[in-house]
């Protein structure tokens, strides 16, 4: 009996060690790129070239000063926040309404409409560069934040509608029917019944949309030309040019640009995680 208890304890300790070993491995595996990036951002270019994985001889905090001052990345971060937040809010406003229509109502062409939204997810963004360029320049919205906001709102519509539709479809019809009996019209049902119950899905779609806007480069580069309206992704590339790259300053700029995403994730992590996992248990 004593021997069996000892064996059990031994197995339990080994299991615990293995579990922690596995968790630490995953932790390091996930964090290594970020740690490497941060350490590299504190080296000189010569150190980075010579030994990419060593620690710096002297921590070059000046790289961060350079990243902030030379490229004007602080202003560009502000622009990114404004553009990303506005494009996200506009996007979720539009897509929550479109998702409500296609998920809760039967009408002619509904399936076709849903298919078009799904197909829109698969269209590569680069394929739309010429039409968007023509549209935005003819509207005289090139080199404006509004131009970028409208484009970002539009390019995110298929994926956001796709995500939100799935959530709205899972809401029991009886709830809406009860609201109808209580006298709720179309708008009240949308605002007071469907929207609150779809919050997780909308936040999930909004998170994807925000990250897409924050990380987007191609359209930001195509449709803006002055630092007053350019976004952080262009600021990061300020340190690269045709034949050479100031890697350490660029890495410092990247680290700076990651910070808002981390803050946004910390603020919304409950909704994001529940949004990502809730589909797994819904029938």
């Amino acid at each position, binding site marked *: 009996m004593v021997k069996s208890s000892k064996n059990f304890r031994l197995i339990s300790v080994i299991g615990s060690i293995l579990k922690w070993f596995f968790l630490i491995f995953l932790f390091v595996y996930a964090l290594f790129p970020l740690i490497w990036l941060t350490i590299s951002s504190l080296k000189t270019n010569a150190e980075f070239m010579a030994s990419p994985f060593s620690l710096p001889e002297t921590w070059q905090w000046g790289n961060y000063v350079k990243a902030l001052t030379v490229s004007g990345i602080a202003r560009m971060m502000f622009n990114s*926040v*404004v553009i990303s937040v506005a494009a996200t*809010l506009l996007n979720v406003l539009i897509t929550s309404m479109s998702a409500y229509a296609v998920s809760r109502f039967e009408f002619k062409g509904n399936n076709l409409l849903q298919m078009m939204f799904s197909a829109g997810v698969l269209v590569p963004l680069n394929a739309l560069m010429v039409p968007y360029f023509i549209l935005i320049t003819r509207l005289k919205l090139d080199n404006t934040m509004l131009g970028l906001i409208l484009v970002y709102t539009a390019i995110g519509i298929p994926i956001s509608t796709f995500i939100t539709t799935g959530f709205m479809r899972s809401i029991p019809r009886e709830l809406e029917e009860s609201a109808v009996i209580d006298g709720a019209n179309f708008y009240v049902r949308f605002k007071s019944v469907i929207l609150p119950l779809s919050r997780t899905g909308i936040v999930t779609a909004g998170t994807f949309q925000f990250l897409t806007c924050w990380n987007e480069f191609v359209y930001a580069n195509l449709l803006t*030309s*002055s630092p007053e309206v350019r976004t952080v992704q262009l600021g990061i590339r*300020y340190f690269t040019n045709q*034949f050479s790259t*100031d890697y350490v300053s660029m890495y410092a700029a990247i680290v700076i640009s990651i910070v808002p995403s981390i803050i946004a994730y910390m603020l919304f992590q409950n909704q994001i995680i529940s949004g990502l996992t809730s589909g797994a248990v819904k029938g």
Partner: protein
Amino acid sequence: MKKFIGIFLTGVLSVSLLAGCGGKGAEKPSGEAGKDGDTPVAEQTDTEQPSGDKVTLKWPCIWSGTDSKADVIREIVDDFNEEYADKYEVIIEENTDYQAYRDGLRTSISAGSAPDIFTFDDDFELYLASGRLVDLTERMDAGWSDNFIEGALEEGTFEDKVFAVPYEMGVTPIMYNKRLLAEAGWDSFPETFDELWELADDLVAAGITPFSQMTGENAWTSMLWYSQIVLAIGGPDVYDNPEDPAFVEAAEVMQKLFEYTTGDAVGAGASVSGGHFLAEETAIFINGPWYIGRLQEDGQNDMYEQVEISPVPLFEGGKGEKGGYVGFVQAYIAAGDTGDPAKTEAQIAFLEYLTEPARVSKLSAHSGALFYIQSDGEADYERLQGQMIEQIEAAPYIQKSFNVISPAAVVNEFPQALSSLVLGEFTPQEFVDSLNSKR
């Protein structure tokens, strides 16, 4: 927390919608931009909008940010704006990411518009076909052409009309580290490929990796090696026949070169291949004059002082001649036609200003780059740059690199095909067939 988020989002939206969204980003005359390259971009913005009758030209400029030409280009534009203060104004739009710049330019051309002033390095036919390039012939005939070295303007000419100015010259000699060669017992660079293999063996014996190579990104350095070898074997007319056996033979040589390179060459990008040379981990490298600044700034142990340059060695039995060089137009400058005569006048005036020999000499001395503009006789060339000019002048021919004469599909295929070649997945013949299938 909800209240905080609500207030924050409302604030952000208000700011974006009321303050800035609809307004165009203030377009700054370049005169307000910092001259030392360290001026914060954010501070470059408090400038007035271009006024009244003044013709404003926008220049999406790749020579900006941390580019070695940025400071002098900015200075030239500032001087132009000052000299023509009542008539013209040039606004620099900084474009530091070259690939993104190219994509944007092509999109703009495809959408039927072209920037007022712009540069490009290939696809002259594409820009020509757009019908959006200003015809520069009249002013060239009136004396502007005297600024250019002989024959240069042919590169920007179509049906006897000049539509683009060949500006920056790209030459790509071999760069070698004489300190590392000395450690292997060599005091000069080999003159033939047989000697080059002997040198490679000696370097390996001394514990030094001979060559920097790469197959990642656009395989730039290795593509230049391939160009040099194809020309050394097939001679300067080799590109006339894509089926020339020189292409297959050069592929065999590439396989051998990769036996003497670093273990990470397959898949490596420019930073890796260049980084090995800068860190004195490899002894031999190919790149252009624009790399001189990197050697000076990022080279380990003052390695810049140890770097010398050489034309490619002679290939025994090949049709290439001793001293043959690889060179091409690195940057054309052109003006987008808007149909407005006043604007065309301003565009040509600026291009003439930009190609003034004294200004280009300063640009060359400051950046290390070479140009198709006549020297003003007072140029103070940097050491390696001076060597390149001497070797160019002595070269029996200067032929273009493989990427310049090949269609874009072939250029895009090259890195993947080269990886397959050096990994043994392709024979040299299959490598060439793979490239030719994209023509």
